[in-house]
C-alpha cells in the first residue's frame, strides 16, 4: 500500500456554457478550494495544472496560467495532460510530490471552456495524428464510438434503449439536487426517447454535453492535516494510472482498428477493468467496500459498462443493477450522486477533479440533499483517449 495524502480543500466553479476565459473558472475554483482548506494562497508550495488543448497556449501550461492568475508567489509549477483523464493525473502528480516529500501543500486546478457541438481535432493537414485521421477518413465522432459500444451491449447482453434512458433519468434526478450542475431539471424516459438520434442507438439525451467549468483541490501531507487539527481528513488512498496491455481487442477512441490478437496469442486483458483493479490493489480494498462511485458517463450506456468494470456486478449485469435501483441515491451503491456527466457535461481537464470534489463532500457528510448516508469509501473512474484511464479511491 502507498501512503495516503489528505484532501484539505475542495472547490468548484459551477458548470455551464458561457464561453468566457477558462482561467476565470479555474481561478474561482482554486479560491474556493483554498477557502475550504482555510489556507492562504501563499501557503501553497506547488501548483499542478490540468491542461486543456482547446484553450491555446495558456491551456497547455495550465499550472503556470493559474499560478499567474492567482498572483505569482514562487510555488513549483507543473502542467499535465492525459485527455479525459487529465484531472486525475494532475491529482496523481500532486500526490507523488507530497509522498516523496517534495511539497507539503499542493493546489490542483483544472478548467475548460468547451466549444459547442462535437469535439474536433486541431486544424491543418496532420495525417500522423490518429485523432485527426478518424475524423478525416471516417467522420467518426466521439458519440459514434459511444454508440458502437452501446450497440455491442445490446447484442451481447440484451440491453435496451430504455435501459440507457434509465441512466439519464437517475443521473438527472441527482443533478437536480446539485447547485454546481449545469442541468438541474429532472428528465423522464419519454423525454430521452423523444430526443433526436445522434448516433444510432444513442439519442441526444444519452450523450453528455461539452461544458465550461472549473474544479480544484488542495492536497496535503497527513502531517500538515494533523498540524492543522483535522482529526479525520478525507484521504486519497489510491490513484490508478495504468496503461492498456497489448493486444487491445476492444475498439477505442481514437483508433480505427484494434490490435491484432490471433487465436494462439496471449489472453485478452481488457483495459477498463484493469484501471479499477489497480486502484483496488493499491488501496487494499474491493468493490464490496465502496459507499459510492463517480464514473465517467460520457454516454448512458457507458455508465453500465463502468458498473461491470468496477466489479459492482458481473459482466452483462449492469442494466439489471440499474433496474433494481442499487445505483440510485438511496440504493445499495449509488453511482454518480453528483448527477454525473449527464448533469454536468464534460469540462475535460476539470471533470476528474470534480469527481474527487464530490467524493470529498460525500465522505465529509456535507453533500446536502444528495448525501449518501454513512459514506466512508468512494471511487472515481474515468477514461481518456490514447490509452489514458484513471481511478481514485478516497476514504474517511
Amino acid at each position, binding site marked *: 500500500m502507498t501512503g495516503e495524502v489528505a484532501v484539505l480543500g475542495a472547490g468548484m466553479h459551477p458548470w455551464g456554457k458561457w464561453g468566457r476565459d477558462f482561467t476565470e473558472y479555474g481561478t474561482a475554483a482554486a479560491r474556493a478550494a483554498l477557502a475550504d482548506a482555510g489556507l492562504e494562497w501563499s501557503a501553497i508550495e506547488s501548483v499542478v495544472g490540468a491542461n486543456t488543448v482547446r484553450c491555446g497556449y495558456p491551456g497547455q501550461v495550465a499550472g503556470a496560467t493559474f499560478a499567474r492568475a492567482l498572483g505569482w508567489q514562487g510555488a513549483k509549477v507543473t502542467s499535465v495532460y492525459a485527455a479525459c483523464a487529465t484531472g486525475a493525473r494532475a491529482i496523481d502528480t500532486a500526490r507523488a510530490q507530497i509522498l516523496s516529500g517534495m511539497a507539503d501543500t499542493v493546489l490542483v486546478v483544472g478548467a475548460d471552456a468547451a466549444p459547442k457541438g462535437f469535439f*474536433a481535432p486541431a486544424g491543418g493537414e496532420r495525417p500522423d495524428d*490518429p485523432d485527426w485521421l478518424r475524423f478525416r477518413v471516417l467522420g467518426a465522432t466521439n458519440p459514434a464510438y459511444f454508440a458502437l459500444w452501446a450497440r*455491442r451491449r445490446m447484442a451481447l447482453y440484451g440491453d435496451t434503449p430504455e435501459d440507457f434512458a434509465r441512466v439519464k433519468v437517475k443521473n438527472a434526478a441527482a443533478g437536480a439536487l446539485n447547485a454546481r450542475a449545469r442541468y438541474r431539471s429532472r428528465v423522464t424516459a419519454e423525454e430521452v426517447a423523444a430526443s433526436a438520434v445522434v448516433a444510432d442507438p444513442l439519442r441526444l439525451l444519452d450523450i453528455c454535453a461539452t461544458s465550461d467549468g472549473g474544479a480544484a483541490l488542495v492536497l496535503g501531507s497527513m502531517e500538515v492535516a494533523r498540524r492543522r487539527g483535522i482529526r479525520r481528513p478525507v484521504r486519497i488512498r489510491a490513484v490508478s494510472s495504468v496503461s492498456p496491455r497489448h493486444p487491445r481487442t476492444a475498439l477505442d477512441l481514437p483508433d480505427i482498428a484494434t490490435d491484432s490478437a490471433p487465436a494462439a496469442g496471449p489472453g485478452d486483458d481488457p483495459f477498463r477493468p484493469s484501471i479499477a483493479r489497480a486502484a483496488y490493489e493499491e488501496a487494499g480494498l474491493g468493490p464490496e467496500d465502496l459507499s459510492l462511485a463517480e464514473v465517467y458517463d460520457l454516454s448512458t450506456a457507458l455508465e453500465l459498462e463502468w458498473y461491470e468494470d468496477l466489479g459492482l456486478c458481473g459482466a452483462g449485469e449492469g442494466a439489471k443493477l440499474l433496474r433494481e435501483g442499487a445505483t440510485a441515491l438511496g440504493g445499495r451503491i449509488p453511482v454518480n450522486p453528483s448527477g454525473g456527466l449527464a448533469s454536468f457535461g464534460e469540462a475535460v481537464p476539470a471533470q476528474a477533479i470534480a469527481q474527487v470534489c464530490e467524493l470529498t463532500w460525500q465522505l465529509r457528510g456535507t453533500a446536502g440533499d444528495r448525501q449518501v448516508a454513512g459514506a466512508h469509501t468512494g471511487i472515481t473512474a474515468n477514461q481518456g483517449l490514447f490509452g489514458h484511464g484513471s481511478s481514485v479511491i478516497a476514504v474517511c
Partner: protein
Amino acid sequence: MSRTRTPVVPGWFTPDDTTAFRLLGTRCRRCRTVHFPREDASCRAPGCAGTALEEVPLSPRGRVWSYTDGRYRPPAPYPSDPGLPWRPYTLIAVELAAEGMVVLGQGAPGVTVADLAVGMEVEVVPGVLAEEDGRTLTTWHWRPVPGEAS
C-alpha cells in the same frame, strides 16, 4: 473532365480498380503481428523489437462487431460540403477472424442500420468518400455479403 482519384490515405488499401480490392496492413517479419493502420518503422508488440515489416492484404470478409450511423455532419477535417444537405452514413466495426482484429469503416452507400446485425458477414469494397478540391477521395466500405439477411 475526369477528376483525379486519390486515396484518402495513401497505402491503406489497394487501387480501387483492382479486381480483388483489399485493405493493406503490415506484418512484423520477426513476430508475425499484423498492424492496421500500417506500421512501417517498428513493431508495436511489447515483446518484439522488430523493425522489418512487410505489407499484407487483410481478410476481405469479416463479421459485424458493432455498428452505428452519423445523423449529423462531422466537423472538419471530414470532407463534406456544408452547402449540400447532410446524408447520414453507417459506421461498421468488423471483426476479421484470421487477424483477430476489429476494423472500422463506413458502410457502402444505401446500407442503413436497419440492414445490419452484430455477427452478420460483410465484405470490403472500394468506395468514394467525397469530392474535394477537384479530386475524388477514395476509401474502403463494408457491405453485407449478398444473400446475408439481417
